């Protein structure tokens, strides 16, 4: 006898309609427009010309490099630092509830506001960071105006802001570990390091995978913070793929910037899907 499903598939329709209208159709349209010379008044078909032009973009290769540096560095730092903070905040310290809110606070502020605030803090002559360093007798740098430090300064701010959400995920992961494991290990005479290495670390693997994946994808398509702090400059020193595309769009090269978006989509997919598969496998195994 055929077993009847409890719920009708019709329940899926509203979500499906939203998904198709807001995601599938725009993606299909953007694939089409990436093959056209598209101005705000109309379009003409131009084949793969836009993709060719996109690859001749002067800052493209440095921006791809910057994107990877940005994504892997922010992701790596966030995983390590937030794991340590989460360990600290799940330990027996007294003020942990207060500290947890403090850690979460940066996440309540919008990315643009964070960017503008840090731009003021990092101002080479008037910013409080260099004034503070001056009191200590250290000569501050031109953090955002110097080609060699600009990208890393933005990365530092991104990590500062992104730590909060990563820490919360880790806290949840650590808290969800059944205390009987820990008790059993303690009875067996495990010390703190062994506890961390053999119990906590492996058992919060799912949480770590979420943090890695989320922060890496976030880093790969990161734009708002860089735009608010440096606008991709000085020159092209902090340009990432998303800011290259935005500048093309702002200049009115709609077809070209759409082609860039299609390429960025492909690039993120190529990185994110295998990574997710790998991480899931590691989680199961």
């Amino acid at each position: 006898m055929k077993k009847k499903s409890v719920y009708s598939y019709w329940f899926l329709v509203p979500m499906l309609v939203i998904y198709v209208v807001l995601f599938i159709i725009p993606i299909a349209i953007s694939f089409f427009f990436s093959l056209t010379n598209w101005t705000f008044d109309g379009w003409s078909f131009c084949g793969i010309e836009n993709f060719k032009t996109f690859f001749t973009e002067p800052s493209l290769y440095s921006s791809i490099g910057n994107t990877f540096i940005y994504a892997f560095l922010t992701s790596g730092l966030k995983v390590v630092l937030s794991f340590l903070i989460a360990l600290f905040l799940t330990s027996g310290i007294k003020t942990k509830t207060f500290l947890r809110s403090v850690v979460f606070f940066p996440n309540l502020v919008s990315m643009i506001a964070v960017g503008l605030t840090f731009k003021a803090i990092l101002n080479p002559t008037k910013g409080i960071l260099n004034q503070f360093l001056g009191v200590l007798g250290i000569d501050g740098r031109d953090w955002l105006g110097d080609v060699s430090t600009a990208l890393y300064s933005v990365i530092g701010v991104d990590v500062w802001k992104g730590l909060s959400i990563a820490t919360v995920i880790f806290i949840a992961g650590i808290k969800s570990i059944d205390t009987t494991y820990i008790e059993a290990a303690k009875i067996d005479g495990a010390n703190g390091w062994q506890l961390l290495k053999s119990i906590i670390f492996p058992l919060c693997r799912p949480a770590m995978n979420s943090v890695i994946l989320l922060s890496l994808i976030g880093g790969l398509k990161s734009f708002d913070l860089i735009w608010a702090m440096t606008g991709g400059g000085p020159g092209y020193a902090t340009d990432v793929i998303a800011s290259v595309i935005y500048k093309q769009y702002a200049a009115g090269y709609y077809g070209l910037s759409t082609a860039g978006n299609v390429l960025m989509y492909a690039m993120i997919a190529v990185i994110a899907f295998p990574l997710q598969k790998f991480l899931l496998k590691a989680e199961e195994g």
Partner: protein
Amino acid sequence: MRKKMGAKIVAFGLSAVMLLGLTACSGSADSSNADNGEGSENELHEITLQVGSDSALAGLEEVCKLAESEIGIKVDIEYTVAGTDTDNLIKTRLSTGDLADVLVYSPGALLMTLNPSEHFIDLSEYDFVDKLDETYKSAVSDDNGVYGVPMGTTRAGAVMYNKNLYDELGLEVPKTWDEFLSNCDKIEAAGKNAIICTMGTSYTIQVPVLGDMYNVLADNPDFISEFEKGEVGFADIPEGVTSFQKLADTVPYYQDGYTAATYDDGCEMLVSGDYGHWIMLTSALTNISSLYSDNINDIGVFAIPGDDPENVGITAWMPNGLYGNKDSDKQEDIVKFLEFFVSEKAIETYLANDAVTGPLCVKGVEYPENTPEAVTNDMQSYYDSGKVSLAQEFLTQVKGSATTEVCSSLITGQYNVEQAAEAYDDDCWKQAEQLGIK
């Protein structure tokens, strides 16, 4: 089960139709109201005006107030974001049909990217456009018509300098680039800063290059037409490379923290007397005269010099124009307002509330009393002797979008002079291809 589901769908469909019907009714009711409103002649006519600016424009606001009492048109001014975001906003509104009745926007290349014959009212049949200066008229016209009237006065991309400091150190206005650099050395030797750079407001760093157009054209009169065809670029002629060399020459003289200094900082520094020069658009005089009105006549202007002391000329920028929206249903009111905007009374009011930053674009209008000396003495002499060229964006539509990035790369040492010139050419030609100008 199936039957019930079907009934539900029908019910949902019916209620959707009813809702649609309701909105349709209210929609038509609205439009009929609007029709009634238009019918009555005695009421004040209202039009909207859109302008991209970060700060309030006193001149424009006063003229709009005057329009209400003089010609019975109330102008509702909408300030939108300034910079490249304004381009996006305008293009989006043009394609969705939401543009205000009157748009304030740059003439020249930027206007042409909006396809003016399609979107703006052709004013060529009206007498008042004959009052416009011919150069300005050409910057707001294409083959199909004339679209705009000027708001304010021209500007120049030139060297603004502190006259007190020049007097103090006994310096002369330089006639060649080498003299300029030697002046800079003397200022530095006296313990002051020679050149202000305001990279924090990124567009300002292009002025030393773009303001050198007079010198490029002095030896290459056909440059622009060859440039448009993609035959000759800045990198291919010595004068073009020199424009970028000049920017590179200025870098060692910049003040500390120049990467973060803003336009407002620049104004403050220039009047302070501790800084010698600022290569900027003279529209900064507006800001300086409103913030530091006592010091406005401490500021002088000279053209970016070339190599020939006998041929020093200035590069000019045209003021923004007011353009009438062709799709608006208030065509008559719009044209009436534009005509009023270039009337003697309106211009007088405008200039009383906004600094004069260069010669005017309407024939037969005198400088008002509050005109800075930098304009009446310094700048006017170039115009009187005909030593003026327009900036690239008013000579050709081919003008790239990444000039700021190219200049910034040169300043921070990521490009050398030749690379910068080549990158600039490539960027301009890419724009021509993308926007279908060729």
